[in-house]
């Protein structure tokens, strides 16, 4: 059973079309993350699912029931907001029970539920406090408690961690993931933070300009981005996307970076990629390669075929755990990731090893993934 299916949803605010035909099916028990830059429509999509906004066209189904004309409270959902949206004049206990009070749940049941949830989230000691007396992390927990107490079919999270400081965000990320593993309820989670998306999601829907660009597992979205937007949006630093030319290389194909220029690098393509890209032989493509696939080569295992290239170092940026190096091959700039103990000076020429197994090729016109 699909916990959520969105079909052909459009949303217009006056002349502005914020959602341009969204189709999305989230299976039961999934942790789906809507990821995209600000203004991509992800929060609007969530509001449409919650029933806080009406779609201009299309249908929303929650648990195999069309909910277009159903009020938020009757959609069997619970929501956590970016600002937490705790009711300022109520104690934590009241905040948690307010929804049950609205639905007429007996007092006895209410206190049982509060006891269960406050134990689960370790907020027992805070129940009689007002939201203003809580720290950011505690407010976050209470907001989660208010959602959890409902035991809904679908949890909606609208950037719940973006108001927390960096350290707390990492902790809460782990906690939310553990919580999901424990209770197993379907979650739709909106964020602009790709680390949150990668670490928590079972599938990521990457959104841009009111459309879903790709909806797939974190590994696939990261390693096989459906188009150039996804390739350039994910990863810090993002995937290198540079012009290249496909040419015959023995029985197979190779991508030539900086073709026709002195110092051009020839990268042999893996068989699968070569087969899929046969039609692009002798044509220009966009080559995508992750910075971590261009490295110093020292830590490469012997059984991984590596291609060595010569490049000029432009800038070297140590981050502690690794060093990001901006290199130039025949006038084309790429980023590489090397071990922190490798010292490279600007202007120096160095040898790098390229892991060609994960090379992506994109059509320069449609910007879509070829292979």
């Amino acid at each position, binding site marked *: 059973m699909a916990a959520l299916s969105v079909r052909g949803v459009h949303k217009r605010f006056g002349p502005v079309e914020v959602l341009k035909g969204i189709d999305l099916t989230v299976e039961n028990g999934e942790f789906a993350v809507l990821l995209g830059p600000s203004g991509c429509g992800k929060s609007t999509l969530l509001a449409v699912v919650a029933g806080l906004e009406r779609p201009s066209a299309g249908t929303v189904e929650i648990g195999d029931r069309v909910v277009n004309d159903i009020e*938020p*409270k009757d959609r069997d959902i619970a929501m956590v*907001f970016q600002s937490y949206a705790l009711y300022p004049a109520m104690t934590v206990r009241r905040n948690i029970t307010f*929804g049950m009070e609205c639905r007429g749940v007996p007092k006895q049941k209410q206190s049982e539920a509060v006891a269960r949830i406050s134990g689960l989230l370790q907020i027992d000691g805070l129940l009689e406090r007002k939201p203003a007396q809580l720290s950011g992390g505690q407010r976050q927990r209470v907001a989660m408690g208010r959602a959890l107490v409902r035991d809904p079919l679908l949890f909606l999270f609208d950037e719940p961690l973006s108001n927390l400081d960096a350290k707390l965000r990492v902790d809460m990320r782990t906690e939310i993931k553990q919580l999901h593993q424990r209770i197993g309820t379907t979650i739709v989670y909106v964020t602009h933070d790709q680390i949150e998306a990668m670490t928590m999601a079972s599938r990521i829907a990457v959104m841009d300009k009111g459309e879903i660009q790709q909806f797939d597992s974190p590994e696939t979205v990261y390693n096989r981005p459906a188009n150039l937007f996804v390739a350039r949006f994910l990863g810090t630093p993002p995937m290198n996307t540079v012009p290249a030319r496909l040419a015959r290389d023995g029985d197979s194909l190779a991508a030539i970076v900086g073709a026709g220029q002195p110092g051009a690098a020839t990268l042999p393509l893996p068989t699968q990629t070569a087969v899929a890209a046969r039609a692009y032989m002798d044509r220009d493509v966009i080559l995508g390669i992750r910075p971590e696939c261009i490295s110093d080569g020292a830590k490469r295992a012997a059984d991984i075929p590596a291609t060595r290239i010569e490049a000029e170092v432009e800038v070297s940026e140590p981050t502690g755990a690794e060093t990001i190096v901006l290199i130039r091959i025949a006038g084309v700039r790429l980023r590489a990731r090397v071990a922190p103990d490798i010292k490279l000076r600007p202007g120096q020429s160095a040898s790098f090893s390229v892991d060609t197994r994960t090379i992506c090729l994109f059509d320069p016109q449609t910007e879509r993934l070829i292979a």
Partner: protein
Amino acid sequence: MRLAVNQQSMKASSSAARFLLRPTRWLIYAALATSALFFLVPLVVVLLNSVRTAQEIGLGSLIGWPSVFAWDNYVQAWSSYCIAQRCDGIRMYMGNSLAMVIPATIVSTALGALAGYSISLWRFRGDSIIFAVVIMGVFLPEQMKLIPWALVLRDLGLSNTVGALILIHTVQGLSFTTLFCRNYFVGIPQDLMKAARVDGAGYFRIFWRIVLPLSPPILVVTVIWQFTGIWNEFLYGVTFTTGVQQPVTAALIAISVTAPTDVPQYGIQSAAVLLAALPTLLVYFFGGQYFLRGLTAGAIK
């Protein structure tokens, strides 16, 4: 360590003392004192006259220290002085004013809070136009509305009743109360409304359980504003009521009418004016701090 702190605080206080001694500082205080005096003179004159006898004022001048304190002025003004051929003092008219101001204040504040809540937190088609129309009432001079009100009161059969004034002040007050409450409520985050809707709360429950508990500052401001405005209002009172139906502001005019042969009763008249001003003064003393704070308070976080 403690010694250092003491030295520092001593240094701070001595520099403050030096600042106080500067001539510019004295100029500022002199200017402030002069203007304060200027504004207080009328009140002082009325206060002093309210305890002077008619003979003393008649023989001397309007300004002067009472030779004996004639507290009886207040008793007479309250219960026996003759106003427009009725010798019952102003108590009945005070009663009229209270009977007018209390319901009109409560109803206009309650409706304004509800209207402000609807306009600010429940966006609906045409809400900004409706708000603009409501706010226009703030700028309409009351003289302009005299004739329309006269027609409405005639048709409702309310002419010359306290009820008429309650109706007028409730309706006219809505512009202000709606404006005040709306401007306060727009500071309530939309996410709270969304959370409440997901929780299953409706229009009135959200108002009652979430919005009202956040509202005491603005409600105090609105109540003070309405109370003083309605209590002090004169034009409608004198136009639409006569005789025993008049509010105290209208009756005070009748009190100042003295037959040419009589000695003007400035002492009793002053006492009556002060009694009539007492309720608004009390409201200001007890609520004034909220008023100043509330007018500047904006966001609720």
